[in-house]
């Protein structure tokens, strides 16, 4: 079997063995089988990554045809190019680390095999998504990760809140998936195929009808398709308006949050836009929409992150915000920068989540930062790793010497936005800068609230605080290595001078797209301002939470409406509840009680009563047993028939 296929098949194998074996295997076997297979898949993906990015030769292994009816054809394939190779190492590295981490984190749980099987199943689906060579397989993976995400958010199904969050995630994603599905149908309608290569070739040779007719309107083809597909990306990547499920998804176990809701699944939307760069490049309006939505999300989610008290929710909003950065990078045409940030972010955000998991583990399951504090001496390793993650997130570094991972990727995103020299580019640039200040602020707020000052937890909890076991810490070191080195090592390849060789044909830049080049020629102040923004945020947080400790409360009081807006997440849940959920419930209740209960059931019961109880008994009573009654019925019958004919034909 070829190595590309093995990468995809190993997680499937693990999911099948552990999923079907379940309790018969026992906890340890389940953990070691899945983790072992994932570590193997991780090693193989790194091999493939260096192979592909070194040789620059993309390849596709077609496993077998999935279905073929007329021109509608889709195959199970493993497409390995630079783009999918980057995703492979991201997915498999983080996944392998999370698998190992889970051995420690979940060891108390009642259903370890189920958890491991879900995690591995998720990994398989994610790999199907990123290695697809057609829209249908991508959609399969897309829905597969949605399903695994649903299963894992609701993993503790005895908690009502977890079930509610799982359902919410599934339903909100349905909105996005509907757009995605429509987009795929549109692609088939316009191009007559759902395979990437012929579709891209048609676009690049200009072989696309400029518009199509929809309900009497002339709709520009590529713009419409790209926008529909982007709706799918918005749902999966929790962008503004479809973001509400992501913070609630933190109901799942923390390793899940790290793998699915930070590093991999939520970045699928970004990956999709980059994968479809040959289409998006020729849909300027759609690109502008991507930029605006991304920039708005980056800003909006950061404002919410400022005031949240749940340690995981802060990181969740941070994820949402960082995804916004990736999107607006892709929107201005800097796909390399978008993928670069996706890559670095996966390491440091997974690190942050797993550190948060370590903290929660240490605090006996407590997630509220108001009940933490003063534990940095008790769990120094976690504390140190958290610093690394946050420094990477805030994008700290010394220009020209060294920087944490986010320093390179976030800078290149902001520079690209500036280099777009367009209205939406500037909108994204400035919101991105403000967002960077807030990012650094809430990151250090998190550190100070969690680790510093007086302990606010109960004495008993404090007594139990302990450093996590090595099986949990070791993966953190691997991720920390990524947070420390991913930026400086791959900067030149992803967005620097070796960019063209690195990406090859995997990402397409239109002839008119000068953004990746211009990004290197921006004024000095543009290069420095992201770092300055990060340092400002750190300084503000340090002042407010370490020096002038009354300040946050005072500011919250002075700007109460703003504070409430942020604290209540801009009231999105409340608005959606009033706009969609309640009307849907009312309609559903009406259709259930009135439509189904009264009309459908009533009609069926009524009909059954009419035939079974009423007519049947009366018919049976006609059968008196008297011959003359029977003869009478026959005569009545013939009289009726003859009468009918005399009237019908007798005229």
């Amino acid at each position, binding site marked *: 079997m070829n190595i590309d296929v093995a990468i995809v098949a190993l997680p499937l194998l693990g999911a099948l063995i552990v999923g079907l074996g379940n309790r018969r295997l026992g906890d340890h076997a389940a953990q070691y089988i899945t983790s072992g297979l994932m570590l193997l898949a991780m090693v193989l993906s790194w091999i493939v990554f260096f192979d592909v990015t070194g040789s620059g030769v993309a390849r596709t292994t077609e496993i077998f045809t999935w279905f073929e009816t007329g021109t509608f054809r889709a195959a199970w394939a493993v497409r390995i190019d630079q783009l999918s190779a980057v995703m492979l190492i991201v997915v498999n590295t983080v996944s392998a680390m999370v698998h190992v981490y889970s051995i420690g984190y979940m060891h108390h749980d009642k259903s370890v095999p189920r958890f491991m099987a879900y995690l591995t199943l998720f990994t398989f689906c994610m790999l199907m998504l990123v290695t697809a060579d057609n829209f249908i397989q991508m959609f399969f993976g897309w829905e597969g990760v949605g399903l695994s995400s649903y299963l894992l958010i609701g993993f503790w199904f005895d908690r009502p809140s977890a079930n509610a969050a799982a359902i919410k995630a599934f339903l909100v994603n349905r909105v996005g998936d509907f757009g995605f599905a429509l987009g795929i149908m549109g692609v088939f309608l316009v191009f007559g195929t759902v395979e990437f290569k012929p579709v891209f070739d048609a676009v690049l040779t200009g072989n696309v009808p400029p518009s199509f007719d929809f309900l009497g309107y002339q709709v520009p083809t590529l713009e419409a398709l790209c926008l529909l597909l982007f709706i799918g990306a918005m749902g999966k990547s929790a962008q503004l308006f479809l973001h509400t499920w992501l913070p609630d998804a933190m109901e799942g176990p923390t390793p899940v949050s790290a793998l699915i809701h930070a590093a991999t699944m939520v970045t699928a939307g970004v990956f999709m836009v980059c994968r479809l760069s040959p289409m998006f490049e020729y849909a300027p309006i759609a690109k502008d929409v991507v930029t605006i939505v991304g920039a708005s999300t980056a800003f909006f989610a950061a404002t919410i992150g400022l005031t949240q008290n749940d340690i995981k929710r802060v990181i969740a909003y941070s994820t949402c915000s960082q995804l916004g950065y990736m999107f607006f990078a892709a929107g201005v045409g800097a796909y390399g920068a978008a993928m670069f940030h996706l890559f670095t972010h996966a390491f440091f955000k997974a690190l942050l989540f797993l550190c948060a998991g370590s903290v929660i583990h240490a605090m006996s399951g407590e997630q509220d930062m108001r009940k933490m504090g003063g534990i940095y001496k008790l769990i120094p390793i976690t504390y140190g790793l958290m610093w690394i993650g946050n420094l990477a997130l805030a994008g700290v570094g010394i220009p020209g010497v060294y920087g944490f991972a986010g320093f390179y990727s976030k800078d290149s995103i902001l520079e690209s936005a500036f280099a777009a020299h367009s209205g939406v580019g500037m909108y994204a640039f400035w919101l991105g800068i403000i967002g960077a200040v807030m990012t650094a602020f809430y990151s250090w707020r998190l550190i100070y609230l969690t680790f510093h000052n007086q302990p606010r937890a109960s004495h008993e909890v404090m007594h139990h605080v302990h450093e996590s076991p090595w099986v949990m810490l070791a993966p953190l070191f691997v991720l920390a290595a990524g947070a420390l080195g991913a930026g400086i090592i791959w900067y030149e390849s992803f967005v620097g001078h070796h960019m063209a060789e690195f990406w090859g044909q995997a990402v397409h830049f239109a002839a008119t797209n000068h953004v990746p080049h211009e990004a290197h020629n921006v004024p000095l102040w543009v290069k420095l301002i992201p770092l300055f923004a990060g340092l400002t945020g750190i300084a503000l947080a340090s002042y407010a939470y370490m020096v002038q400790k009354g300040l946050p409360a005072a500011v919250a009081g002075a700007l109460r409406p703003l504070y409430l807006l942020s604290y209540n997440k801009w009231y999105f849940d409340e608005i959606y509840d009033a706009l969609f959920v309640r009307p849907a419930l009312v309609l559903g209740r009406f259709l259930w009680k009135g439509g189904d209960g009264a009309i459908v059931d009533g009609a069926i019961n009524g009909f059954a009563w009419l035939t079974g109880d009423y007519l*049947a008994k009366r018919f049976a009573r006609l059968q008196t047993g008297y011959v003359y009654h029977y003869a009478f019925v026959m005569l009545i019958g013939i009289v009726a028939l*003859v009468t009918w004919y005399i009237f019908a034909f007798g005229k």
Partner: protein
Amino acid sequence: MESFVSLNLGLARPEIFLAVASLALLVLGAWGGDRSTRLIGWASVASLVIAIALTATDGAAGLAFNGLFVADAFAAFAKIVAFGAAAVAIIVALDQMARDGVVRFELPLLMLLASLGMALMISANDLIALYVGLELQSLALYVVAAIRRDTVKSTEAGLKYFVLGALSSGMLLYGSSLIYGFSGSTSFETLAAALAGEPSLGLIVGLVFLCAGLAFKISAVPFHMWTPDVYEGAPTPITAFFAAAPKVAAMALFARVLIGPFGEMDDQWRQIIVVVAVLSMILGAVAAIAQKNIKRLMAYSSIGNVGYALVGLAAGTAAGINGLLLYMAIYVVMTIGAFAVIMAMRRQGQGVEEISDLAGLSQSQRGLAVALAIFMFSMAGIPPLAGFFGKFFVFNAAIAAGLYGLAVIGVLTSVVSAFYYIRIVKVMFFDPATTPFDRVPGTLRAVLIASVVVISFGFLAGGPVIELSTAAADSLFAG
């Protein structure tokens, strides 16, 4: 008159053989008495088998007896089904009646004579021939219904059948005389020519009476009233015979009369058939729900089934007749199978016939329960069982002929009838068990297995049968 002496006896070989055989066996019976019952019985079965062979091998079509008798593919198909059903009925009747202590050599003979009557009905090409064939069949059946003359129920059934049958014969004859009066002919050939053009009212009234007489024989509503009582009163093997072979013959006759001589008047007779079909389907579906006796339930079931077959006739097309033939062939197998189970319902030698007696049958006699379940599902029209295809073909023909309302009513009533068919399954499989039945005798076992195989796997070999029935239906329209 084309030719005066066109006897063409060769075309009627099966009928002539049956007539000679029955007379010979009658002599044997008169000489040997009831001791020769088994011999006569098996000889009758053999005669029917030979008659089937004669029918099947002789593909010639044409007129015999100066145009009174017609042989064609349609007749051949219907005869084979009727003969086959009669043969199986004789086999089980011999066995079952012997168990009840009734050993009479007349029984197989009468059934044989009835079969001869059926054959003559199927091949009738003249109103007189029609009547003679019909009466030969009916008179034999009246006696057969009352064969257990020591029981009140059986004699009552025979008498009721006879009295009402006489009334229906009167209607039929009255209709025939009107038709003759208004057209001047009794021959189907000349009638067809005479009826072209605007039909007179007298002729239509005659047609109505004729149809009423035939509707009685197939027990279509409102001429069905005798059916539940006779089905319940007659001994079970006799009921099985009544429900199968005569229905096929009468239905074939009905189709021949309406498509042949009255083919031009299809706008007129279709209205009768539609009304009768709708009433039969509704009554068959609804009235059966209230039944507790399984034989009465089967009576209403046969009324409903006749309604479905009439849907094919109402279409009036070759596809419709094809559907009718297939439906009746499948119906015959299902009916014989179901009655075989009913005959197996004995406790300490005594037959029981309440639906509640079937409770928990799946635990005591799983094979029997599964067989009846298959028949019931087939009657309810569940694919891939044969009953589904019967319904499919008639409804399809009705749709093609534009009779949407009829098809919709048909589908709706089969939903209603599914209720009582499947309720029997429920009683057998989910109700608490009662005393088990006696061991099922070998003959019934064989009949059951054969019917189950045909009903369950018939669709695998349906192609050749459908080819035959299509050819049969086409032959009716050729003339």
